[in-house]
């Protein structure tokens, strides 16, 4: 195994590795713009120049492969001067409009200027002007003046998204990112170009002007958008979610997330069910959670336990589903009734990240019901139509079938729906109970690969909402069922212990 000396310390490396990878692994900071661990090497920003002994000139650390016995200096006077010169060069035509730039605060130009340059511009005369706020696609805005032409976005579209829609046009000072003829940046991962942009050149229409990044509070979370379960950060300011961005995890999503996933943070606010309601259609009345629970318990008590269906939700955590299984199968039906599964309808899929199953926890719901097998939503519709199901307790307001086919559910005497967001099922429900959204609860999601991932609450539950397991526990107590779980810890210990990966 070759050994390389970086800043007078020896490190083991693999043959063919580049200097910057060895340095990164060992915690040595080499500044760079164009290098990204998941993308090909461009070596065009020249920020990572380091001194390699026996080489006459400085070499880009992102491109230079190590050799046994190589001696590298990353902070020699020659290197520091080169970095200063590169910074001055990159900032030559930069508009320095940091106060109105969304990247300010997490901008590598700002960070490296403080660290490596710190001098005023020596440019005499007018800077080169280029297009500003150009819409590259429905979700991405391009500011050519701020761009340093690192081509990260170009390489991302070509190599990761496999849709080479971006390219570099013009030359020298006038170089800028251009779109392919007749195209827009509209593939499913367009927001990732803004995410990996090291400067403020690419910004998203969604986050544009929404907040300054220093106001944001980041909490690790799991994307609820599909069964891939991408790891993400949810960024909030004053308790309002402003954006979601990928959290690096090579086991699950690498460095990326899809556009739909990045926008799932809106579910925290949009169409939220914030208070309980009792009654169907025009007779529906908003009420307190306690009153709705009492009413629901009474209504379920009036139908035989054998015709009460428990409908597990693949949008809800494994713990929520586990408590529903306990309540319905073991305490209420005592093995007589059936368990069903609901969730959002399937959607588009690709071989990068997006999964056709648009629910984050289908596998977790199935596992929670084991050893019972779950029946599909169509079975529930048939049984409701046939009259073998008269009441149902449902986790989640979405159904995998079109709304027009949900008519049989209108025949049910009792339809208790626990949901965070309004959906077709909450419209048909006799009792709606406000559940906390995925961003407000602790719990686990199991993705399509079977990886159990921990969810942490990013905010307190909105309105009257409570975690679904808690609502179910309260419902059980109203129904005089001996459901022993009063804390999430008790639920977790009772549910099958399994390894949590993230």
């Amino acid at each position, binding site marked *: 195994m070759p050994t390389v000396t970086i800043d007078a310390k020896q490190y083991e490396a693999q043959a063919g590795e580049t200097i910057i990878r060895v340095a990164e692994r060992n915690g040595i900071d080499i500044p760079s713009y164009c290098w990204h661990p998941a993308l090909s090497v461009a070596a065009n920003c020249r920020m990572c120049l380091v001194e390699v002994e026996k080489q006459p000139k400085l070499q880009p650390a992102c491109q230079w492969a190590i050799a046994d016995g190589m001696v590298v200096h990353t902070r020699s006077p020659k290197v520091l001067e080169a970095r200063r010169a590169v910074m001055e060069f990159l900032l030559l035509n930069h508009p320095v409009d940091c*106060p*109105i730039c969304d990247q300010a605060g997490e901008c590598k130009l700002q960070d490296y200027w403080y660290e490596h340059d710190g001098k005023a511009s020596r440019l005499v005369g*007018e800077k080169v*002007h*280029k*297009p*500003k*706020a*150009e819409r590259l696609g429905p979700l991405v805005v391009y500011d050519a*003046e701020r761009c340093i032409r690192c081509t990260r976005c170009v390489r991302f579209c070509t190599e990761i998204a496999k849709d080479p829609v971006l390219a570099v*046009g013009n030359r020298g000072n006038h170089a800028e990112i*251009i*779109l*392919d*003829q*007749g*195209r*827009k940046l509209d593939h499913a991962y367009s927001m990732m170009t803004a995410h990996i942009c090291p400067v403020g050149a690419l910004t998203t229409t969604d986050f*544009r*002007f*929404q907040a*300054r990044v*220093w*106001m944001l509070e980041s909490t690790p979370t799991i994307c609820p958008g599909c069964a891939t379960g991408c790891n993400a950060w949810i960024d909030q300011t004053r308790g309002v979610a402003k954006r979601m961005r990928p959290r690096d995890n090579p086991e699950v999503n690498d460095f990326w997330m899809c556009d739909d996933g990045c926008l799932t943070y809106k579910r925290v606010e949009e169409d939220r069910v914030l208070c309980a309601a009792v009654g169907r259609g025009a007779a529906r009345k908003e009420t307190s959670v306690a009153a709705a629970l009492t009413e629901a318990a009474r209504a379920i008590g009036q139908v035989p336990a054998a015709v009460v269906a428990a409908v597990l939700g693949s949008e809800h955590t494994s713990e929520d589903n586990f408590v529903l299984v306990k309540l319905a199968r073991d305490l209420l039906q005592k093995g007589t009734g059936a368990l069903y599964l609901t969730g959002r309808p399937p959607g588009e899929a690709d071989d990068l990240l997006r999964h056709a199953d648009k629910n984050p926890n289908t596998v977790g719901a199935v596992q929670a019901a084991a050893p019972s097998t779950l029946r599909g939503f169509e079975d529930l519709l048939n049984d409701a139509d046939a009259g073998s199901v008269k009441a149902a307790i449902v986790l989640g307001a979405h159904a995998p079938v079109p709304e027009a086919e949900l008519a049989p559910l209108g025949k049910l005497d009792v339809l208790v729906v626990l949901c965070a967001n309004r959906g077709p099922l909450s419209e048909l429900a006799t009792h709606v109970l406000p559940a906390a959204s995925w961003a407000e609860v602790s719990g686990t999601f199991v993705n399509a690969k079977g990886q159990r991932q921990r969810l942490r609450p990013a905010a307190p539950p909105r309105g009257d909402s409570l975690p679904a397991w808690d609502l179910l526990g309260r419902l059980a107590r109203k129904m005089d069922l001996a459901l022993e779980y009063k804390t999430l810890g008790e639920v977790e210990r009772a549910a099958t212990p399994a390894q949590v990966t993230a």
Partner: protein
Amino acid sequence: MAYKVIRPPESAVQSLYVPAVVDGLGITMRKFFRNAFGRRKDTATLEYVGTPETTMPYPLRHRGLHRLTQREDGSPRCVACLCCSTACPAQCIFIEPGEYPEDDPRHGWERYPVRFVIDEMRCIFCGYCVEACPCDAIRMDSGLHAPPVVKRSDLIFEKERLLSMPGRDGKHLHKNPRPDPPDPESYSLHDGARPPLVDRGASGRDGAGT
């Protein structure tokens, strides 16, 4: 626990206090008669103006109620960067940033405050917002202090009110040397032509596919 206070020793005359009182009154009376009858030019007292309508002139650097400066076309100079609200220790500034509409010549250049609200009751008049502003858009040189009001909401100033207040010179303009897009000087930088960034951004370029 009691402490013993060590006092300097006093003589019998000092502990009487009467000589010190007479001494002090002497100074008071000397100044009084000089000011009252002496007509000295360097009198330290100012003439009281007399009526409630006349006020003391504030010093030139007095930090009064905020105002927003205007561009030449009357729009706010503010670009809604939120630097002032970030710097504000009292958190009395609320700004909702937005983008100029498509047909505005300033579209694509800058953001602007859709709402700009200052709670003058919460403000501690420290002037940090003025220091933080990169555009000379917010100033405290209106020469006014927060007036007494009947309703609390009367002291929550919206953008329109802040824009309407002139400086002590009676003007609304700012001293930002940077030309604004619709301002005539910004075109002179490009030989009198419209800067390319304004019309190219909207109409697209070769290869842009628009």
